[in-house]
């Protein structure tokens, strides 16, 4: 089998296992959609001022924010927890003893996560359009949105790989993954809109991390705020860092 066929084949099996696993199908896939329905139903008909003099419908805001959240769960949480579990149970070590090149195995996981992320974003956007007449990005804004989506997905996959380095075992995985991500989701305006009245020190902390930039990059096209390529650069830098850490320290064998 050549590399492309091997990759395709690998993604097929990862995909099968993904949908049959109730935990991954629920937490990765249904969770963001559930939040989307809850947030928009509760708050959808108000509007908020995101920048001085620029107000948007909350439903539109949440459609964009939940699209960003979906990418984070599909990539970061899914990869980190999946790998921590597979590493602990010995699946990774077994794979390492077969001739499949590690690059293909890893790329398979990554592309599958990207695939799940894209489906989630499409569902989220369609839901927003259908029920709340959310404005979807078009033209240049769509292009910018897609760039952010792809760069962000790859970055959160890389960070998912990287965080496994500090996860000692599968039991600790949910705690570490959530503790490292949940605060950032709150800080970055994913669950609670960041308005023009937010304290600046909070924003400064948020700005250090990639979620904030990713969220803004994803939201711009929906909210009609200017797209800042700096967001893409910062997210990509984090991705590169995650990749380098994984490349150097990723382990295929359970830790003791």
């Amino acid at each position, binding site marked *: 089998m050549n590399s492309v066929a091997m990759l395709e084949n690998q993604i097929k099996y990862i995909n099968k*296992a993904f949908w049959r696993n109730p935990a991954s199908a629920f937490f990765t896939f249904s969770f963001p959609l559930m939040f989307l329905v809850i947030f928009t139903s509760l708050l959808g008909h108000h509007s908020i001022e995101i920048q001085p003099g620029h107000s948007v419908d909350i439903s539109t805001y949440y459609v964009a924010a939940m699209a960003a959240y979906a990418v984070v769960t599909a990539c970061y949480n899914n990869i980190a927890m999946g790998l921590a579990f597979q590493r602990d149970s010995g*699946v990774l*070590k077994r794979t*390492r*003893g*077969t*001739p499949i090149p590690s690059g293909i195995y890893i790329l398979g996981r990554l592309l599958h996560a990207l695939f799940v992320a894209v489906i989630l974003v499409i569902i989220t956007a369609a839901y927003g359009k259908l029920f709340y007449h959310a404005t979807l990005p078009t033209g240049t804004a769509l292009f910018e949105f897609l760039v952010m989506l792809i760069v962000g997905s790859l970055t959160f996959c890389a960070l998912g790989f990287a965080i496994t380095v500090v996860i000692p075992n599968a039991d600790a995985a949910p705690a570490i993954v959530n503790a490292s991500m949940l605060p950032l989701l709150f800080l970055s305006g994913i669950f609670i809109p960041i308005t023009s009245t937010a304290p600046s020190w909070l924003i400064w902390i948020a700005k250090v991390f990639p979620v904030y930039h990713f969220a803004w990059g994803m939201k711009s096209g929906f909210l009609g705020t200017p797209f800042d390529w700096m967001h893409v650069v910062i997210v990509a830098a984090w991705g590169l860092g995650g990749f380098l850490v994984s490349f150097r320290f990723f382990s295929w064998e359970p830790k003791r």
Partner: protein
Amino acid sequence: MDSHYSSAAISVRGLKKSYGNTLALRGVDLEIQQGEIFALLGPNGAGKTTIVEILEGFRHRDEGDVAVLGIDPNRQPMALKIRIGIVLQSTGVERYLSVAETVKMYSSYYPHPRPVGEILGLVGLEAKRDERVLRLSGGQQRRLDVAIALAGDPDLLFLDEPTTGFDPSARREVWEVIKNLQSLGKTVVLTTHFMDEAQYLADRLAIIANGKIVAEGEPETLAGRDRMLATVRFSLPDGVVPPLHLGARMTAAHAYEVKTTLVTKDLFDLTSWAMSAGVDLEDLRVDRPTLEDVYLELTTEGGASKSKEVES
């Protein structure tokens, strides 16, 4: 590489490995022939897994030469992985795929896989083809492990404790699977704690204790087991004493034993005396050292130092 490597499936010289301050292997030499079932027998922490995982390419050695199918596992891992099958001591598998899907997935990693149906037949899992892996019993999971190891139709298989934790009938089943492998011409290296397993399966075995091989050979003749003294044991009724020429030693009240290499002659002498004297020899039996006796002798404290003279 030396020419003598080509006839042996595995050749190991002066293998050393330590983990921090723990000396796990202190100079191991091994030669395993093609088509052979070879067992590494030893207590917990002896170094079995360390040896096997160095041969598989998972761990790096500190010193020594290793050739597996003529390949240095650390230098050409890919060339080796294509030709070996591995069952790790503790291992897992994706739980949500079916048995057939799992074997098929692993087959797809190899250039010349063995047909999935054939593999499932070999390990006796045809009936569970479409069952999800998470619903298999422990014994069935281990057979799936062997099935996955067979996916690439390897020349050489490593089985690290293939039957630990099994009930006796599940062990028997896995034994038959392993015997089947040999009839396919595969070389099998297995580790075990069980004497009966080594005795039943292995063409040759090595006993390892404390990171060193203390005995190596065929199960029947290991460490001179066949040449060791046999013991004739019997009991006599109250007041009867065996004649001196039999060389019997009293071990308890009424209980005697004779240590001998001439079992037939001594038994004849003993029974002829008993017949003519009209005495009944209660509990008459002949004991030879079992593999377990040899094993315990070699692997318990102080046993290892005596191994040299036994080996001779």
